[in-house]
């Protein structure tokens, strides 16, 4: 095969999709657009543009819950999800927990934070200690209030529900990634009458939280939470950036829909025509339809932009053989 086709920008039909830049460019561009939106808005917010966030009902409950715990003199429980190892969901959850801890620190209310993984434990310990320090109450921070329970899902569930029972927590915050154990937590906390604020980034667990908890953050609201609570320009900016991306996606889907509708109408009309002319001969009909389909596939359409054609599986390009890796030599001997 000629060498020019090996270049990065080749558009030869046979090699189509073999490299991102051929047809997969659209996806990369879209991702890049999201990045630009977010970074741009963060810049804008940092400059001091006043950006707006609408009210999110579940979040106002946080202070109320901590307040109630203080009244009752019982601890506040926080579980920042089951992320292992730590990821953004966990970081986000810990950020919200830090906000809770801030309120608790002010009232010198005891807190318990249950960490699922070791890395989460490290991070949570750090952040919560920082929170107490920056609030000016470093002496109120009890290092044992952040606990590693277990990194096995159900051992963790058993441990946390044990803690809920024994410590009789007055308020419980379940924020982050939750899976099957969500209902164990929610029902256990419910059975001792704790007020619960919950959210799961897993859509499949949300209905259970809705059924069993007092306040639930659905889906995305979880990510909006820290922007809403802290009004930190970076958070707010990136939230606005996300909104821009979402609106672009909405517009894009809407346009794609119209495009698909028009296309489908054309295809239907064409097919009907072919059907009427070749009705009597099934073989001819099948061939004609197949030809038509091939042509239709080559037409420009928005869905086609998304789903890039893949290269044929047996595509082979001649290259020079690399010399054996030195370390590997023993293997061939």
């Amino acid at each position, binding site marked *: 095969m000629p060498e020019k086709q090996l270049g990065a920008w080749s558009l030869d039909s046979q090699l189509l999709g073999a490299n991102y830049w051929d047809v997969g460019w659209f996806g990369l561009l879209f991702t890049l657009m999201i990045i630009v939106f977010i970074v741009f808005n963060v810049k804008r917010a940092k400059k001091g543009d006043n950006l707006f966030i609408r009210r999110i009902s579940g979040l106002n409950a946080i202070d109320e819950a901590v307040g109630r715990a203080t009244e009752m003199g019982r601890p506040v429980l926080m579980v920042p999800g089951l992320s292992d190892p730590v*990821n953004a969901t966990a970081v986000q959850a810990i950020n919200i927990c830090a906000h809770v801890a801030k309120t608790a620190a002010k009232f010198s209310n005891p807190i318990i934070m249950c960490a699922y993984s070791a890395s989460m434990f490290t991070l949570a310990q750090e952040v919560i200690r920082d929170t107490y320090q920056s609030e000016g109450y470093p002496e109120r921070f009890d290092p044992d209030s952040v606990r590693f329970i277990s990194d096995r899902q159900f051992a963790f569930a058993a441990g946390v529900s044990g803690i809920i029972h024994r410590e009789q927590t007055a308020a419980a915050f379940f924020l982050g990634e939750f899976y099957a154990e969500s209902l164990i937590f929610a029902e256990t906390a419910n059975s001792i009458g704790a007020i619960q604020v919950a959210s799961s980034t897993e859509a499949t667990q949300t209905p259970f939280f809705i059924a069993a908890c007092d306040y639930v953050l659905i889906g995305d609201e979880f990510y909006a939470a820290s922007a809403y609570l802290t009004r930190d320009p970076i958070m707010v900016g990136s939230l606005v950036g996300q909104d821009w991306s979402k609106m672009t996606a909405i517009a894009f889907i809407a346009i794609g829909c119209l495009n698909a509708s028009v296309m*489908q109408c054309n295809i239907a009309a064409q097919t009907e025509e072919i059907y009427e002319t070749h009705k009597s001969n099934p073989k001819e009909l099948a061939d004609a339809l197949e030809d038509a389909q091939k042509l239709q596939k080559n037409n420009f359409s928005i869905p086609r932009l998304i789903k890039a054609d893949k290269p044929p599986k047996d595509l082979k390009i001649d290259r020079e053989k690399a010399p054996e890796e030195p370390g590997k030599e*023993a293997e061939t001997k």
Partner: protein
Amino acid sequence: MKPEQIEVYRTIAAGAGVLATIGLLSVLYKENKFYRVFEHIFLGLAAGWSAVAVWTESLREIWWDKLTGVVETTGAVTEPGRWAYILLVPIGAMGYMVFSRKHNWMAKIPMGILLGIWSGLQIQSFWTVYGPQMKQGMLPIIPTSFDKFIVRSDAPPELAAVTITWSQAISNFLFVFTLLSVLSYFLFSFEVKNRALKNFNVAGRYLLMIGFGAIFGSTVMMRFSLVIDRMYFIWDEFLMKRILHMG
């Protein structure tokens, strides 16, 4: 072990399993000492197993073998040792500085590596997940022929495949409507004043509930299958097979 010893052992193990199951399930009645014993055994065993598995299932092969190379019992070297892997030890050790009052900031370095890689992965994978899903939303919402309401079973298959009837168009429209209204329900940076848009958002919330209801339905199936499995273990695998020697 001899076959009869194996049988005895199996019965004891199954009995212990049944006891542990009942112990954990007893929390349903009331939090009690019996539950607490098994809770702590469970936590201990789980932590112990993690400590074992971290070496036997991962570190030994992905780290130690790479570091020290592999020498067969015959004396042939199949993998050279890559000494630079030892440099990961101090990086890991930095994580343990979290307990130090003075240098706890160092724990953020291994954390930073994990989070950095994770962040990069998100950027890499965003489109592969959500691109096709956006495409899935691009459905034809205009009927191709206005006189058909449903697909008739006597229509020729060639035509049925490309025709969009009224009912299909409506279904497709509902699909797109649900998708868009749910998406717009999660827009946070606007105060929606317009009445129509407000209703659009409320519709989004209701449609979400249909989704959640369906999720609830299919989840229930799984939860019950697990209880059934437990009961099968207690009644059939333990009581019938091991104790009563039936079935």
